[in-house]
Protein backbone atom coordinates (compact mmCIF):
# COMPACT_ATOMS: atom_id res chain seq x y z
CA UNK A 1 0.00 0.00 0.00
CA UNK A 2 2.78 2.37 0.93
CA UNK A 3 4.74 1.47 -2.16
CA UNK A 4 1.67 2.12 -4.27
CA UNK A 5 1.24 5.53 -2.70
CA UNK A 6 4.90 6.27 -3.22
CA UNK A 7 4.60 5.24 -6.83
CA UNK A 8 1.70 7.61 -7.31
CA UNK A 9 3.59 10.42 -5.62
CA UNK A 10 6.62 9.85 -7.81
CA UNK A 11 4.19 10.00 -10.71
CA UNK A 12 3.35 13.58 -9.82
CA UNK A 13 7.08 14.38 -9.73
CA UNK A 14 7.18 13.15 -13.32
CA UNK A 15 4.29 15.46 -14.10
CA UNK A 16 6.21 18.40 -12.65
CA UNK A 17 9.28 17.53 -14.71
CA UNK A 18 7.11 17.22 -17.81
CA UNK A 19 5.42 20.54 -17.10
CA UNK A 20 8.84 22.16 -16.61
CA UNK A 21 9.91 20.87 -20.02
CA UNK A 22 6.66 22.11 -21.49
CA UNK A 23 7.34 25.50 -19.95
CA UNK A 24 10.79 25.47 -21.54
CA UNK A 25 9.34 24.71 -24.97
CA UNK A 26 6.66 27.40 -24.62
CA UNK A 27 9.33 29.86 -23.48
CA UNK A 28 11.48 29.05 -26.50
CA UNK A 29 8.51 29.56 -28.82
CA UNK A 30 7.49 32.85 -27.21
CA UNK A 31 10.97 34.18 -26.60
CA UNK A 32 13.52 32.63 -28.98
CA UNK A 33 16.90 32.17 -27.34
CA UNK A 34 15.41 30.98 -24.06
CA UNK A 35 16.93 27.51 -24.43
CA UNK A 36 20.51 28.58 -24.80
CA UNK A 37 23.20 27.17 -22.56
CA UNK A 38 24.13 30.62 -21.27
CA UNK A 39 20.58 31.54 -20.42
CA UNK A 40 19.78 28.21 -18.82
CA UNK A 41 22.89 28.27 -16.67
CA UNK A 42 21.98 31.81 -15.67
CA UNK A 43 18.54 30.60 -14.57
CA UNK A 44 20.14 27.78 -12.62
CA UNK A 45 22.50 30.26 -10.97
CA UNK A 46 19.62 32.38 -9.65
CA UNK A 47 17.69 29.28 -8.66
CA UNK A 48 20.65 28.05 -6.62
CA UNK A 49 20.46 31.06 -4.28
CA UNK A 50 16.91 30.54 -3.04
CA UNK A 51 17.28 26.82 -3.76
CA UNK A 52 19.97 26.44 -1.12
CA UNK A 53 17.69 28.01 1.48
CA UNK A 54 14.83 25.88 0.17
CA UNK A 55 16.95 22.79 0.79
CA UNK A 56 17.08 23.58 4.51
CA UNK A 57 13.38 24.42 4.39
CA UNK A 58 12.74 20.97 2.87
CA UNK A 59 14.33 19.23 5.85
CA UNK A 60 12.30 21.35 8.27
CA UNK A 61 9.02 20.81 6.40
CA UNK A 62 9.73 17.06 6.22
CA UNK A 63 9.66 16.96 10.02
CA UNK A 64 6.34 18.79 9.95
CA UNK A 65 7.75 22.17 10.97
CA UNK A 66 8.33 25.44 9.17
CA UNK A 67 11.15 27.99 9.15
CA UNK A 68 10.17 31.58 8.35
CA UNK A 69 13.56 32.96 9.36
CA UNK A 70 15.55 31.66 6.36
CA UNK A 71 15.31 34.92 4.41
CA UNK A 72 16.28 36.97 7.44
CA UNK A 73 19.37 34.80 7.97
CA UNK A 74 20.24 35.46 4.33
CA UNK A 75 20.10 39.22 4.97
CA UNK A 76 22.06 38.72 8.18
CA UNK A 77 24.90 37.43 6.01
CA UNK A 78 24.70 40.59 3.88
CA UNK A 79 25.19 42.56 7.09
CA UNK A 80 28.05 40.62 8.71
CA UNK A 81 29.96 39.12 5.76
CA UNK A 82 31.19 42.46 4.31
CA UNK A 83 32.61 43.43 7.71
CA UNK A 84 34.25 40.08 8.39
CA UNK A 85 35.63 39.30 4.93
CA UNK A 86 38.11 42.13 4.56
CA UNK A 87 41.31 40.27 3.70
CA UNK A 88 41.00 36.71 4.86
CA UNK A 89 38.38 34.51 3.31
CA UNK A 90 38.19 31.02 4.78
CA UNK A 91 37.91 31.82 8.48
CA UNK A 92 35.29 34.59 8.07
CA UNK A 93 33.40 32.34 5.68
CA UNK A 94 33.24 29.60 8.30
CA UNK A 95 32.28 32.14 10.97
CA UNK A 96 29.39 33.30 8.79
CA UNK A 97 28.15 29.75 8.38
CA UNK A 98 28.52 29.20 12.12
CA UNK A 99 26.46 32.32 12.86
CA UNK A 100 23.70 31.01 10.60
CA UNK A 101 23.84 27.63 12.29
CA UNK A 102 23.74 29.34 15.67
CA UNK A 103 20.57 31.24 14.80
CA UNK A 104 19.07 27.98 13.55
CA UNK A 105 20.19 26.27 16.76
CA UNK A 106 18.40 28.89 18.87
CA UNK A 107 15.26 28.18 16.85
CA UNK A 108 15.82 24.46 17.29
CA UNK A 109 16.36 24.63 21.07
CA UNK A 110 13.22 26.68 21.66
CA UNK A 111 11.12 24.57 19.31
CA UNK A 112 12.38 21.18 20.51
CA UNK A 113 12.78 21.70 24.24
CA UNK A 114 10.64 24.73 25.12
CA UNK A 115 7.95 23.45 22.69
CA UNK A 116 7.31 26.83 21.10
CA UNK A 117 5.30 26.29 17.88
CA UNK A 118 7.74 26.55 14.92
CA UNK A 119 5.80 29.28 13.15
CA UNK A 120 5.75 31.50 16.24
CA UNK A 121 9.39 30.85 17.10
CA UNK A 122 10.70 31.57 13.62
CA UNK A 123 8.55 34.71 13.34
CA UNK A 124 10.06 35.88 16.64
CA UNK A 125 13.56 35.14 15.34
CA UNK A 126 12.81 36.94 12.10
CA UNK A 127 11.48 39.96 13.98
CA UNK A 128 14.40 40.18 16.39
CA UNK A 129 17.00 39.61 13.65
CA UNK A 130 15.45 42.30 11.47
CA UNK A 131 16.04 44.82 14.22
CA UNK A 132 19.54 43.53 14.83
CA UNK A 133 20.53 43.67 11.15
CA UNK A 134 19.55 47.30 10.77
CA UNK A 135 21.20 48.41 13.99
CA UNK A 136 24.35 46.45 13.21
CA UNK A 137 24.68 47.63 9.64
CA UNK A 138 23.22 51.08 10.17
CA UNK A 139 21.27 50.49 6.98
CA UNK A 140 24.46 51.28 5.05
CA UNK A 141 25.63 48.75 2.52
CA UNK A 142 29.07 47.28 3.07
CA UNK A 143 32.03 46.56 0.82
CA UNK A 144 32.06 44.60 -2.41
CA UNK A 145 32.20 40.83 -2.17
CA UNK A 146 35.55 39.16 -1.52
CA UNK A 147 37.05 37.90 -4.82
CA UNK A 148 37.10 34.32 -3.54
CA UNK A 149 33.43 34.49 -2.51
CA UNK A 150 32.63 35.93 -5.91
CA UNK A 151 34.55 33.08 -7.52
CA UNK A 152 32.70 30.59 -5.37
CA UNK A 153 29.41 31.94 -6.67
CA UNK A 154 29.71 33.11 -10.26
CA UNK A 155 32.79 31.37 -11.72
CA UNK A 156 31.90 28.82 -14.34
CA UNK A 157 32.66 25.14 -14.11
CA UNK A 158 31.85 23.90 -17.59
CA UNK A 159 28.48 25.36 -18.48
CA UNK A 160 27.37 25.69 -14.87
CA UNK A 161 28.16 28.37 -12.33
CA UNK A 162 29.95 27.24 -9.21
CA UNK A 163 27.04 28.01 -6.86
CA UNK A 164 24.81 25.80 -9.01
CA UNK A 165 27.35 22.98 -8.75
CA UNK A 166 27.57 23.35 -4.96
CA UNK A 167 23.78 23.42 -4.74
CA UNK A 168 23.38 20.26 -6.81
CA UNK A 169 26.08 18.47 -4.78
CA UNK A 170 24.26 19.45 -1.58
CA UNK A 171 20.97 18.18 -2.97
CA UNK A 172 22.52 14.82 -3.84
CA UNK A 173 24.19 14.73 -0.43
CA UNK A 174 20.95 15.33 1.45
CA UNK A 175 19.06 12.97 -0.83
CA UNK A 176 21.46 10.20 0.16
CA UNK A 177 21.24 11.17 3.83
CA UNK A 178 17.45 11.06 3.72
CA UNK A 179 17.16 7.75 1.93
CA UNK A 180 20.22 5.82 3.07
CA UNK A 181 20.84 6.73 6.70
CA UNK A 182 19.00 6.19 9.96
CA UNK A 183 19.04 9.92 10.59
CA UNK A 184 17.22 10.46 7.31
CA UNK A 185 14.60 7.92 8.25
CA UNK A 186 14.17 9.67 11.60
CA UNK A 187 13.43 12.93 9.79
CA UNK A 188 10.78 11.34 7.59
CA UNK A 189 9.25 9.36 10.45
CA UNK A 190 9.00 12.51 12.56
CA UNK A 191 6.95 14.23 9.90
CA UNK A 192 4.54 11.39 9.28
CA UNK A 193 3.85 10.64 12.95
CA UNK A 194 5.69 12.42 15.77
CA UNK A 195 3.96 10.44 18.53
CA UNK A 196 4.78 7.07 16.99
CA UNK A 197 8.35 8.20 16.35
CA UNK A 198 8.72 9.11 20.00
CA UNK A 199 7.32 5.78 21.12
CA UNK A 200 9.58 3.85 18.77
CA UNK A 201 12.63 5.40 20.37
CA UNK A 202 13.55 8.08 17.89
CA UNK A 203 15.31 11.03 19.50
CA UNK A 204 12.56 13.44 18.51
CA UNK A 205 13.98 16.51 20.21
CA UNK A 206 17.50 16.05 18.93
CA UNK A 207 16.27 15.45 15.37
CA UNK A 208 14.03 18.53 15.50
CA UNK A 209 16.92 20.59 16.85
CA UNK A 210 19.24 19.34 14.10
CA UNK A 211 16.96 20.20 11.17
CA UNK A 212 16.56 23.81 12.30
CA UNK A 213 20.32 24.10 12.80
CA UNK A 214 20.90 22.71 9.31
CA UNK A 215 18.30 25.09 7.94
CA UNK A 216 20.13 28.02 9.55
CA UNK A 217 23.44 26.80 8.14
CA UNK A 218 22.07 26.36 4.61
CA UNK A 219 20.32 29.74 4.75
CA UNK A 220 23.64 31.31 5.70
CA UNK A 221 25.21 29.67 2.65
CA UNK A 222 22.33 30.94 0.53
CA UNK A 223 22.92 34.42 1.93
CA UNK A 224 26.62 34.22 1.03
CA UNK A 225 25.71 33.09 -2.50
CA UNK A 226 23.36 36.06 -2.65
CA UNK A 227 26.18 38.38 -1.57
CA UNK A 228 28.61 36.85 -4.05
CA UNK A 229 26.06 37.09 -6.84
CA UNK A 230 24.91 40.65 -6.12
CA UNK A 231 28.49 41.78 -5.31
CA UNK A 232 27.20 44.81 -3.41
CA UNK A 233 25.05 44.10 -0.38
CA UNK A 234 21.89 46.13 -0.15
CA UNK A 235 18.91 46.22 2.15
CA UNK A 236 15.41 46.90 0.92
CA UNK A 237 13.67 49.53 3.00
CA UNK A 238 11.23 46.99 4.32
CA UNK A 239 9.49 47.62 7.58
CA UNK A 240 9.63 44.53 9.67
CA UNK A 241 10.04 40.96 8.63
CA UNK A 242 13.14 41.51 6.50
CA UNK A 243 13.54 38.68 4.02
CA UNK A 244 10.07 37.20 4.51
CA UNK A 245 9.65 37.14 0.73
CA UNK A 246 12.64 34.79 0.50
CA UNK A 247 11.14 32.61 3.21
CA UNK A 248 7.92 32.47 1.21
CA UNK A 249 9.69 31.62 -2.04
CA UNK A 250 11.62 28.84 -0.33
CA UNK A 251 8.36 27.41 1.01
CA UNK A 252 6.77 27.78 -2.42
CA UNK A 253 9.66 25.86 -3.99
CA UNK A 254 9.27 23.04 -1.48
CA UNK A 255 5.50 22.80 -1.85
CA UNK A 256 5.48 23.11 -5.64
CA UNK A 257 8.05 20.33 -5.70
CA UNK A 258 5.42 18.13 -4.11
CA UNK A 259 6.79 17.71 -0.59
CA UNK A 260 3.83 17.37 1.73
CA UNK A 261 3.42 20.55 3.76
CA UNK A 262 2.40 18.49 6.77
CA UNK A 263 5.65 16.55 6.58
CA UNK A 264 6.73 12.97 6.08
CA UNK A 265 6.78 12.74 2.28
CA UNK A 266 9.05 14.42 -0.20
CA UNK A 267 12.67 15.36 -0.44
CA UNK A 268 15.45 17.54 -1.83
CA UNK A 269 15.08 16.14 -5.36
CA UNK A 270 11.53 17.48 -5.49
CA UNK A 271 12.64 20.84 -4.14
CA UNK A 272 15.19 21.04 -6.96
CA UNK A 273 12.42 20.78 -9.53
CA UNK A 274 10.07 22.98 -7.53
CA UNK A 275 12.62 25.77 -7.29
CA UNK A 276 13.57 25.39 -10.95
CA UNK A 277 9.96 25.43 -12.09
CA UNK A 278 9.18 28.63 -10.19
CA UNK A 279 12.32 30.32 -11.54
CA UNK A 280 11.54 29.23 -15.12
CA UNK A 281 8.09 30.71 -14.70
CA UNK A 282 9.47 34.01 -13.40
CA UNK A 283 12.02 34.17 -16.23
CA UNK A 284 9.33 33.53 -18.82
CA UNK A 285 7.11 36.23 -17.36
CA UNK A 286 10.02 38.68 -17.31
CA UNK A 287 10.85 37.84 -20.92
CA UNK A 288 7.24 38.42 -21.89
CA UNK A 289 7.59 41.88 -20.39
CA UNK A 290 4.98 41.47 -17.68
CA UNK A 291 5.17 44.11 -14.95
CA UNK A 292 6.04 43.02 -11.44
CA UNK A 293 2.42 43.32 -10.35
CA UNK A 294 1.23 40.70 -12.83
CA UNK A 295 4.20 38.46 -12.05
CA UNK A 296 3.21 38.44 -8.36
CA UNK A 297 -0.34 37.66 -9.36
CA UNK A 298 0.62 34.81 -11.70
CA UNK A 299 3.02 33.40 -9.09
CA UNK A 300 0.27 33.24 -6.50
CA UNK A 301 -2.22 31.76 -8.92
CA UNK A 302 0.23 29.12 -10.17
CA UNK A 303 1.06 28.10 -6.60
CA UNK A 304 -2.65 27.58 -5.91
CA UNK A 305 -3.24 25.70 -9.16
CA UNK A 306 -0.35 23.33 -8.54
CA UNK A 307 -1.36 22.65 -4.95
CA UNK A 308 -4.93 21.97 -6.06
CA UNK A 309 -3.69 19.58 -8.77
CA UNK A 310 -1.63 17.67 -6.19
CA UNK A 311 -4.65 17.46 -3.93
CA UNK A 312 -6.87 16.15 -6.69
CA UNK A 313 -4.24 13.56 -7.65
CA UNK A 314 -4.11 12.41 -4.03
CA UNK A 315 -7.88 12.15 -3.91
CA UNK A 316 -7.93 10.07 -7.09
CA UNK A 317 -5.39 7.73 -5.51
CA UNK A 318 -7.64 7.24 -2.50
CA UNK A 319 -10.65 6.65 -4.73
CA UNK A 320 -8.92 4.04 -6.87
CA UNK A 321 -7.77 2.29 -3.72
CA UNK A 322 -11.32 2.13 -2.42
CA UNK A 323 -12.87 0.76 -5.60
Amino acid at each position, binding site marked *: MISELEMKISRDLLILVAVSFGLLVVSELLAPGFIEIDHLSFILEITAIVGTAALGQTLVILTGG*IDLSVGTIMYLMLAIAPRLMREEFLLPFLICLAVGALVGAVNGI*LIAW*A*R*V*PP*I*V*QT*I*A*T*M*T*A*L*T*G*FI*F*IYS*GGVSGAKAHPLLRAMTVNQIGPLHSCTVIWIILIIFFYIILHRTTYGRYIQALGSNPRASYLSGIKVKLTTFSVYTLSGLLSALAGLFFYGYANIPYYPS*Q*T*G*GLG*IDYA*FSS*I*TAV*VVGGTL*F*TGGKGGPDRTFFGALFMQLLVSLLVMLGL*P*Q*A*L*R*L*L*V*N*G*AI*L*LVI*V*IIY*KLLQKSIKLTKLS
Partner: protein
Amino acid sequence: MVQSKLSPKLKKFATAYTVYVLLILFWIASSLFVKNFITLYNMVTIVIVCTSISLVSLGQNMVILTGGIDLSVGAVLSLATALASIFMKSDTILGVAVALAAGLLIGLFNGLIVSKLKIEPFIVTLGSMGIASGLALYLRPAPGGYISPEFINLVFYSIKIFDVNFPITCFLILVLTTIFGEIVLLKRNLGRMIYAVGGNEQYARLMGVPVDRVKIICYCISGLTAALAGLYISAMTRVGSPSVGDPFTLYSIIAVTLGGTSIQGGVGRYINTVGAAIIVASIERLMNQIGVLGIMGSWFTWIVEGIFLVIVIVLSMKVKGK
Protein backbone atom coordinates in the same frame (compact mmCIF):
# COMPACT_ATOMS: atom_id res chain seq x y z
CA MET B 1 -9.23 34.90 55.69
CA VAL B 2 -10.07 37.61 53.26
CA GLN B 3 -6.51 37.64 52.08
CA SER B 4 -6.41 33.95 51.27
CA LYS B 5 -9.77 34.15 49.55
CA LEU B 6 -8.67 37.09 47.46
CA SER B 7 -5.33 35.80 46.36
CA PRO B 8 -6.52 32.80 44.29
CA LYS B 9 -9.01 35.07 42.62
CA LEU B 10 -6.26 37.53 41.85
CA LYS B 11 -4.09 34.71 40.61
CA LYS B 12 -6.84 33.48 38.34
CA PHE B 13 -7.33 36.99 37.03
CA ALA B 14 -3.60 37.39 36.42
CA THR B 15 -3.32 34.14 34.48
CA ALA B 16 -6.39 34.90 32.41
CA TYR B 17 -5.18 38.39 31.53
CA THR B 18 -1.40 37.92 31.54
CA VAL B 19 -1.08 40.36 28.66
CA TYR B 20 -2.60 43.20 30.64
CA VAL B 21 -0.38 42.49 33.64
CA LEU B 22 2.54 42.55 31.23
CA LEU B 23 1.26 45.76 29.66
CA ILE B 24 1.03 47.53 33.02
CA LEU B 25 4.48 46.28 34.01
CA PHE B 26 5.81 47.51 30.70
CA TRP B 27 4.21 50.92 31.17
CA ILE B 28 5.59 51.22 34.71
CA ALA B 29 9.07 50.20 33.61
CA SER B 30 8.98 52.58 30.65
CA SER B 31 7.86 55.53 32.72
CA LEU B 32 10.65 54.82 35.19
CA PHE B 33 13.26 54.90 32.44
CA VAL B 34 11.76 57.50 30.15
CA LYS B 35 10.42 60.79 31.41
CA ASN B 36 6.88 61.65 30.35
CA PHE B 37 6.01 58.31 28.84
CA ILE B 38 2.54 58.17 30.33
CA THR B 39 1.11 61.29 28.73
CA LEU B 40 -2.20 61.85 27.01
CA TYR B 41 -0.38 62.53 23.75
CA ASN B 42 1.45 59.21 23.89
CA MET B 43 -1.72 57.35 24.77
CA VAL B 44 -3.49 58.88 21.78
CA THR B 45 -0.64 57.83 19.49
CA ILE B 46 -0.76 54.32 20.92
CA VAL B 47 -4.53 54.13 20.34
CA ILE B 48 -4.14 55.26 16.72
CA VAL B 49 -1.54 52.56 15.96
CA CYS B 50 -3.31 49.95 18.04
CA THR B 51 -6.66 50.39 16.28
CA SER B 52 -5.29 49.28 12.91
CA ILE B 53 -3.52 46.26 14.40
CA SER B 54 -6.59 45.27 16.42
CA LEU B 55 -8.82 45.44 13.36
CA VAL B 56 -6.60 43.11 11.30
CA SER B 57 -6.11 40.88 14.32
CA LEU B 58 -9.84 40.31 14.82
CA GLY B 59 -10.15 38.27 11.64
CA GLN B 60 -6.73 36.71 12.11
CA ASN B 61 -7.72 35.71 15.64
CA MET B 62 -10.85 33.94 14.44
CA VAL B 63 -8.97 32.13 11.70
CA ILE B 64 -6.19 31.05 14.08
CA LEU B 65 -8.81 29.88 16.60
CA THR B 66 -10.12 27.45 13.97
CA GLY B 67 -6.58 26.12 13.63
CA GLY B 68 -5.79 27.99 10.42
CA ILE B 69 -3.73 31.03 9.53
CA ASP B 70 -4.32 33.91 7.13
CA LEU B 71 -1.18 35.23 5.43
CA SER B 72 -3.18 37.32 2.96
CA VAL B 73 -4.39 39.98 5.43
CA GLY B 74 -1.53 42.39 4.72
CA ALA B 75 -2.01 42.15 0.97
CA VAL B 76 -5.79 42.56 1.33
CA LEU B 77 -5.16 45.66 3.44
CA SER B 78 -2.99 47.15 0.68
CA LEU B 79 -5.54 46.19 -1.97
CA ALA B 80 -8.28 47.92 0.03
CA THR B 81 -6.28 51.16 0.22
CA ALA B 82 -5.58 50.94 -3.52
CA LEU B 83 -9.25 50.36 -4.39
CA ALA B 84 -10.43 53.10 -2.03
CA SER B 85 -7.99 55.58 -3.51
CA ILE B 86 -9.34 54.84 -7.00
CA PHE B 87 -13.08 54.63 -6.41
CA MET B 88 -13.36 57.45 -3.89
CA LYS B 89 -12.78 59.84 -6.78
CA SER B 90 -16.35 59.28 -7.92
CA ASP B 91 -18.04 58.50 -4.63
CA THR B 92 -16.89 57.95 -1.05
CA ILE B 93 -19.42 55.22 -0.31
CA LEU B 94 -18.58 53.45 -3.56
CA GLY B 95 -14.90 53.41 -2.57
CA VAL B 96 -15.70 51.95 0.84
CA ALA B 97 -18.04 49.36 -0.67
CA VAL B 98 -15.61 48.22 -3.35
CA ALA B 99 -12.76 47.88 -0.84
CA LEU B 100 -14.91 45.84 1.55
CA ALA B 101 -16.27 43.69 -1.27
CA ALA B 102 -12.73 42.88 -2.42
CA GLY B 103 -11.76 41.85 1.11
CA LEU B 104 -14.85 39.71 1.46
CA LEU B 105 -14.26 38.08 -1.91
CA ILE B 106 -10.67 37.11 -1.15
CA GLY B 107 -11.75 35.82 2.25
CA LEU B 108 -14.48 33.75 0.63
CA PHE B 109 -11.98 32.38 -1.89
CA ASN B 110 -9.57 31.40 0.93
CA GLY B 111 -12.34 29.84 2.95
CA LEU B 112 -13.74 27.80 0.09
CA ILE B 113 -10.36 26.35 -0.92
CA VAL B 114 -9.30 25.65 2.66
CA SER B 115 -12.55 23.95 3.66
CA LYS B 116 -13.72 22.25 0.48
CA LEU B 117 -10.39 21.13 -0.97
CA LYS B 118 -8.72 20.58 2.42
CA ILE B 119 -5.49 22.32 1.48
CA GLU B 120 -3.29 23.75 4.24
CA PRO B 121 -4.36 27.32 5.07
CA PHE B 122 -0.74 28.47 5.09
CA ILE B 123 -0.29 27.55 1.42
CA VAL B 124 -3.71 28.74 0.27
CA THR B 125 -3.33 32.16 1.85
CA LEU B 126 0.26 32.39 0.62
CA GLY B 127 -1.11 32.01 -2.89
CA SER B 128 -3.92 34.50 -2.41
CA MET B 129 -1.43 36.88 -0.80
CA GLY B 130 0.47 36.87 -4.09
CA ILE B 131 -2.73 37.47 -6.05
CA ALA B 132 -3.93 40.30 -3.80
CA SER B 133 -0.59 42.10 -3.61
CA GLY B 134 -0.17 41.72 -7.37
CA LEU B 135 -3.59 43.31 -7.89
CA ALA B 136 -2.78 46.12 -5.46
CA LEU B 137 0.49 46.84 -7.22
CA TYR B 138 -1.21 46.71 -10.62
CA LEU B 139 -3.98 49.10 -9.62
CA ARG B 140 -1.71 51.53 -7.78
CA PRO B 141 1.95 51.11 -8.78
CA ALA B 142 3.04 53.94 -6.47
CA PRO B 143 1.43 55.54 -3.41
CA GLY B 144 -1.13 58.12 -4.48
CA GLY B 145 -4.74 58.53 -5.46
CA TYR B 146 -7.55 60.33 -3.76
CA ILE B 147 -9.08 59.68 -0.37
CA SER B 148 -12.07 61.92 0.16
CA PRO B 149 -11.63 64.52 2.93
CA GLU B 150 -15.04 63.84 4.44
CA PHE B 151 -14.03 60.20 4.93
CA ILE B 152 -10.76 61.24 6.59
CA ASN B 153 -12.62 63.69 8.81
CA LEU B 154 -15.11 61.02 9.77
CA VAL B 155 -12.47 58.45 10.73
CA PHE B 156 -10.21 60.91 12.48
CA TYR B 157 -12.87 63.18 13.95
CA SER B 158 -11.20 64.62 17.00
CA ILE B 159 -11.85 67.05 19.80
CA LYS B 160 -9.34 68.93 21.91
CA ILE B 161 -8.75 67.66 25.42
CA PHE B 162 -5.97 69.46 27.31
CA ASP B 163 -4.32 70.71 24.11
CA VAL B 164 -4.24 67.21 22.64
CA ASN B 165 -6.32 66.26 19.63
CA PHE B 166 -8.29 63.29 20.82
CA PRO B 167 -9.60 61.16 17.92
CA ILE B 168 -13.01 60.05 19.13
CA THR B 169 -14.07 57.91 16.16
CA CYS B 170 -10.76 56.11 16.17
CA PHE B 171 -11.10 55.33 19.87
CA LEU B 172 -14.68 54.25 19.26
CA ILE B 173 -13.60 51.88 16.48
CA LEU B 174 -11.14 50.23 18.87
CA VAL B 175 -13.75 49.83 21.62
CA LEU B 176 -16.48 48.60 19.28
CA THR B 177 -14.15 46.10 17.58
CA THR B 178 -13.15 44.73 20.95
CA ILE B 179 -16.74 44.41 22.14
CA PHE B 180 -17.82 42.88 18.85
CA GLY B 181 -15.01 40.32 18.93
CA GLU B 182 -15.68 39.37 22.53
CA ILE B 183 -19.44 39.02 22.00
CA VAL B 184 -19.15 36.98 18.82
CA LEU B 185 -16.54 34.64 20.27
CA LEU B 186 -17.97 34.18 23.76
CA LYS B 187 -21.70 34.86 23.58
CA ARG B 188 -22.75 33.64 20.16
CA ASN B 189 -23.16 30.21 18.65
CA LEU B 190 -20.65 31.05 15.95
CA GLY B 191 -18.00 31.65 18.60
CA ARG B 192 -18.68 28.34 20.31
CA MET B 193 -18.46 26.55 16.99
CA ILE B 194 -15.16 28.31 16.21
CA TYR B 195 -13.66 27.04 19.47
CA ALA B 196 -15.07 23.58 18.78
CA VAL B 197 -13.54 23.43 15.30
CA GLY B 198 -10.18 24.60 16.60
CA GLY B 199 -10.24 22.26 19.57
CA ASN B 200 -10.88 19.09 17.64
CA GLU B 201 -12.20 19.25 14.12
CA GLN B 202 -13.30 15.62 13.94
CA TYR B 203 -15.28 15.75 17.20
CA ALA B 204 -16.83 19.01 16.10
CA ARG B 205 -17.93 17.40 12.84
CA LEU B 206 -19.36 14.41 14.67
CA MET B 207 -21.27 16.71 17.01
CA GLY B 208 -22.92 18.30 14.00
CA VAL B 209 -20.95 21.52 13.78
CA PRO B 210 -20.96 22.74 10.18
CA VAL B 211 -17.15 22.83 10.12
CA ASP B 212 -16.78 24.00 6.53
CA ARG B 213 -19.26 26.82 6.94
CA VAL B 214 -17.60 28.00 10.17
CA LYS B 215 -14.22 28.10 8.46
CA ILE B 216 -15.56 29.95 5.43
CA ILE B 217 -17.20 32.55 7.70
CA CYS B 218 -13.94 33.02 9.62
CA TYR B 219 -11.90 33.61 6.46
CA CYS B 220 -14.59 35.99 5.18
CA ILE B 221 -14.45 37.96 8.43
CA SER B 222 -10.67 38.00 8.15
CA GLY B 223 -10.82 39.45 4.64
CA LEU B 224 -13.43 41.95 5.75
CA THR B 225 -11.52 43.18 8.82
CA ALA B 226 -8.33 43.44 6.77
CA ALA B 227 -10.22 45.59 4.26
CA LEU B 228 -11.64 47.70 7.11
CA ALA B 229 -8.12 48.20 8.44
CA GLY B 230 -7.12 49.18 4.91
CA LEU B 231 -9.79 51.87 4.84
CA TYR B 232 -8.62 53.07 8.25
CA ILE B 233 -4.97 53.20 7.08
CA SER B 234 -5.96 54.98 3.87
CA ALA B 235 -7.65 57.66 5.99
CA MET B 236 -4.55 57.85 8.16
CA THR B 237 -2.03 58.14 5.31
CA ARG B 238 -4.43 59.96 2.93
CA VAL B 239 -3.27 57.85 -0.02
CA GLY B 240 -3.63 54.38 -1.44
CA SER B 241 -0.41 52.40 -1.35
CA PRO B 242 0.53 48.97 -2.76
CA SER B 243 2.77 47.85 0.10
CA VAL B 244 1.48 49.67 3.18
CA GLY B 245 -0.12 46.47 4.43
CA ASP B 246 2.95 44.25 4.25
CA PRO B 247 3.95 44.45 7.93
CA PHE B 248 0.40 43.90 9.10
CA THR B 249 0.40 40.18 8.39
CA LEU B 250 3.20 39.81 10.89
CA TYR B 251 1.73 42.35 13.29
CA SER B 252 -1.55 40.47 13.40
CA ILE B 253 0.07 37.06 13.95
CA ILE B 254 2.34 38.53 16.63
CA ALA B 255 -0.59 40.23 18.39
CA VAL B 256 -2.73 37.09 18.32
CA THR B 257 0.01 34.78 19.61
CA LEU B 258 1.34 37.31 22.11
CA GLY B 259 -2.22 37.53 23.40
CA GLY B 260 -2.07 33.86 24.29
CA THR B 261 -4.11 32.38 21.46
CA SER B 262 -2.72 28.97 20.60
CA ILE B 263 -1.47 28.76 17.03
CA GLN B 264 -2.93 25.24 16.90
CA GLY B 265 -6.36 26.72 17.52
CA GLY B 266 -9.10 26.29 20.06
CA VAL B 267 -7.65 28.39 22.88
CA GLY B 268 -7.52 32.16 23.26
CA ARG B 269 -9.49 35.35 23.68
CA TYR B 270 -9.75 38.39 21.49
CA ILE B 271 -9.55 40.85 24.38
CA ASN B 272 -6.04 39.59 25.11
CA THR B 273 -5.14 40.05 21.45
CA VAL B 274 -6.17 43.70 21.81
CA GLY B 275 -3.96 43.90 24.89
CA ALA B 276 -1.07 42.50 22.87
CA ALA B 277 -1.77 45.04 20.13
CA ILE B 278 -1.54 47.79 22.76
CA ILE B 279 1.81 46.33 23.88
CA VAL B 280 3.12 46.32 20.30
CA ALA B 281 1.97 49.93 19.83
CA SER B 282 3.48 50.93 23.18
CA ILE B 283 6.86 49.38 22.36
CA GLU B 284 6.84 51.29 19.09
CA ARG B 285 5.97 54.56 20.86
CA LEU B 286 8.62 54.03 23.53
CA MET B 287 11.34 53.28 21.00
CA ASN B 288 10.42 56.37 19.02
CA GLN B 289 10.60 58.46 22.15
CA ILE B 290 14.07 57.30 23.15
CA GLY B 291 15.69 60.13 21.26
CA VAL B 292 19.28 59.01 21.83
CA LEU B 293 18.91 56.18 19.39
CA GLY B 294 17.63 58.45 16.65
CA ILE B 295 16.30 56.69 13.59
CA MET B 296 17.70 53.41 14.84
CA GLY B 297 15.15 53.47 17.64
CA SER B 298 12.44 52.04 15.48
CA TRP B 299 14.56 49.00 14.70
CA PHE B 300 14.93 48.22 18.38
CA THR B 301 11.17 47.78 18.33
CA TRP B 302 11.57 44.61 16.35
CA ILE B 303 14.20 43.16 18.64
CA VAL B 304 12.11 43.86 21.73
CA GLU B 305 8.97 42.45 20.09
CA GLY B 306 10.73 39.27 19.01
CA ILE B 307 12.17 38.65 22.46
CA PHE B 308 8.87 39.52 24.14
CA LEU B 309 7.07 37.01 21.96
CA VAL B 310 9.41 34.15 22.83
CA ILE B 311 9.33 34.91 26.55
CA VAL B 312 5.54 35.07 26.66
CA ILE B 313 5.07 31.88 24.66
CA VAL B 314 7.62 29.94 26.70
CA LEU B 315 5.98 31.17 29.92
CA SER B 316 2.51 30.27 28.72
CA MET B 317 3.74 26.80 27.71
CA LYS B 318 5.15 26.38 31.23
CA VAL B 319 1.86 27.44 32.81
CA LYS B 320 -0.16 25.10 30.62
CA GLY B 321 2.27 22.26 31.30
CA LYS B 322 1.50 22.52 34.99
